[in-house]
């Protein structure tokens, strides 16, 4: 858009400069550092040596926990993203109906989104404590169970709990994305479909889904990225114990670099994670750009 006033050629760049600098120094520069480090020899004390090619990558891939951690990451991302998308979509469909108390329900659903992940994870950590956790207390008091249940009897179950907390905090985001998509649908479309005798499923398939697909795509891709990057839940609830069996890639690389002081393979893992994210980001950008063009 041209405002019709004469501007010097470089003026727009002056306006962009502060923002550009901020991003360049604190986002782009660390990326470059991580890349450089991943090809350098790093001592335990953190002294950076010379170029050693792909040694760090080879070391990272041969770490004993590498396979478990990658599988965990996959399960973590897939289960949290898929389940929270399905749940969030259903909740959005319900909240889009008119009923008494809808505003209150929407405000309540904001809670998990606005709360710090580390606080959420701590609370759930307390809830499922076997000895004195609140879940046992409430269920016993309601008479639903007769005896205290050990809610975290094995690390697999603890991992499932971590996924549950992940889902719990991700659902509101999906819900609000889908809701904003749903609100843009013209009500007359449904009326016309009803006139033509379309049932609930037909309307869902042929009107609702196509209309909210853009919001759903954005929320899904973003969730993949954010869930992949999520650190506080796993770190607070199990710290990856026992022996990295509940670690995801992000918590593992944190442990590797800041506890075990093996910065070399840790940076290599960072780069691998970064590249995985790049693929997701690419998909995301294509979908956003396409949406921009549609508007």
């Amino acid at each position, binding site marked *: *858009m041209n*405002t019709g*006033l004469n501007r010097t050629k470089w003026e*727009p760049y002056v*306006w*962009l400069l502060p*923002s*550009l*600098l*901020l*991003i360049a120094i*604190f986002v782009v*520069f*660390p*990326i*470059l*550092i991580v890349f450089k*480090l991943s090809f350098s020899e790093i001592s335990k004390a953190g002294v950076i040596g010379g170029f050693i090619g792909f040694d760090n990558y080879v070391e990272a891939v041969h770490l004993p926990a590498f396979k478990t951690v990658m599988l965990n990451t996959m399960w973590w991302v897939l289960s949290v993203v898929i389940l929270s998308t399905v749940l969030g979509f259903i*909740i959005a469909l*319900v909240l889009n109906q008119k009923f008494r108390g809808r505003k209150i329900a929407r*405000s309540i*659903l*904001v*809670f*998990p*989104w*606005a709360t*710090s992940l580390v606080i*959420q994870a701590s*609370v759930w950590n*307390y*809830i499922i404590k076997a*000895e*004195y956790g*609140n879940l*046992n*207390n409430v269920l016993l008091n*309601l008479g639903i169970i*007769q005896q205290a249940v050990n809610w975290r009897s094995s690390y697999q179950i603890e991992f499932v709990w971590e996924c549950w907390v992940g889902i*719990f905090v991700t659902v509101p985001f999906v819900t*609000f*994305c889908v809701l904003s998509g749903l*609100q843009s649908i013209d009500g007359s479309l449904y009326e016309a479909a009803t006139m033509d005798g379309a049932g609930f499923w037909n309307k869902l398939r042929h009107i609702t889904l196509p209309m909210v697909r853009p919001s759903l795509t954005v929320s899904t891709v973003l*969730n993949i*990225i*954010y869930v992949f*990057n999520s*650190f506080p839940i796993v770190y*607070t609830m199990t710290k990856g114990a026992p022996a990295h069996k509940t670690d995801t890639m*992000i918590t593992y*690389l*944190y442990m590797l*670099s800041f506890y075990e002081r093996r910065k070399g393979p840790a940076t290599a893992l*960072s780069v691998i*994670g*970064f590249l995985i994210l790049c693929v*997701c980001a690419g998909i*995301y*950008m294509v979908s*956003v750009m396409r949406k921009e063009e549609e508007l």
Partner: protein
Amino acid sequence: MRYPEVRRQNRRMLLLLILGLILTLVLMSLPLYSFDVGVYTKKSGNTFVGDEKYQAVRAEVEAVAEEYRSQGFDVEIREDVLERVNSKGNTTSLVTFTISERYSRSFLSFLGKKLPSSTVLVFMVSLMGAALVFSIAGLAGTDDLVPRYLNRKGRLLRNLAVTALLLALLLVPVFMLMNNVIFSRRLSLYNADLITEGKEAFFSMLDHFFFDGRMGENVGDVLGGLKIQRSPMAWLLLLTLFISLTAAICIRYGEIKSSLLRGALYVFVVIVCVVTLYPYYVMTITAFRSNAETLDMYFLHMAPTRWVWSNLTDIVQRGVPRYLMNSIFVAGGATALAMLCGIPAAYAMARMNFVGKKAFLGFVIMSQMFSPVVLLIGISQLMNTLHLNNTLWGLMLINAAFNQAFAIWLLRGTFVSISSEMEQAAMIDGCGTVGALTKVLIPMAAPGIVTALIFVFINAWNEYTIATVLISTAQNRPITVGITQFSSFNMIEWQYMFAASLLATIPVVILFMSIEKHLTAGLTSGGVKG
């Protein structure tokens, strides 16, 4: 207008309602509860099964059982053997003989007893009766009218019938859960002397229920080994009452489908809200409990027995105000910086044409993809070089940078939606570009700016990962890192942790609620999450 076919349907539905109620009563009179009550216990130490001592005790117990049988009790003998090794290394066993009596009880037998669940049952049965009366009264004289043409009285009565049945239906699980609590949880807590308050009253209640008050003081011993079992058939009550309920709804509205869908919708919403609020309930009650109560595995109450407000003053001593101030400083500074850099950039993106605009947009979106976590090592290295490690300034800069993308994206959207005519007029009047932005555009775009502002603030406030890596001294911790100090390897002070969490959560949740509406609009276009 009167419709004979409406009358026919209403009569059918009334019959269905009555049938449902009759089935409910039949189920309630079946012996669905069974209790095993130990009426007599004899322990025999240092015994082996089959030896002389065992035989003697066994005969003694048989005699007692015979006595009970002659009084008309239905008793049986159970023996439990507990083997143990004494200090000399010999294996001995402790044999416990229990004479237990099996009681079968129907739901209706709870009526007229003094148990708390009896009251619930009385309510349930009266509600069922009331529903029947209301339905019949609501149909009288109007049973051939389409529901739409009902008079006020008919509508009210039919509504009451539906409500009464709905309440009766809800009381079924309440009644069953209450019995579980009374006969197993409370009884075992009293028997183990974990609670003593109201013990006598409780036992006299049970005495009255099982033995019509004959047992007196002994009832505590007798009920020591009480076992309660409920037949799964009891859940059929829900079904029979539901049949009556649907009939009542049909009488009220003429059809059932939309009412059931509506009901299902409310049930779903309530479940979602309860699950969502559950952790916040836990956080709140735990924040005001004493340390002993937070770690008590037999803790009985759903709320603190005593609200320990001193938890709040304790965390003040433990540095929480300092952490809160740090968080305010970091989040506030990051927000200010993100806005100072973001507004001009968004303005240029919205109002100017230049080479590389698309590239910059792509650059911004890309930067939003990377949570700082994957770059942790790079960031800590960079901060070392800049001597910003372990400073609040460093944390502030990182937060500002990683929130740039959203700020620009949302602000640009707001600016584009505002027509540029006013600014042009201002510029013709002699304002520069800067004047036009600050005096005209920013006031007009205030809602969008506030939304972006609050969102960036909340993101920075809730940030945890970078802070754990960058901040190494206690006095520089933001609140998210600060709360974790209450959990050390061997002791977790949950009450302090959650009191601090509560302080950290309440303000941001309120802020978030205030922008939720604006945020949803900018979301799918801006595509950002906290």
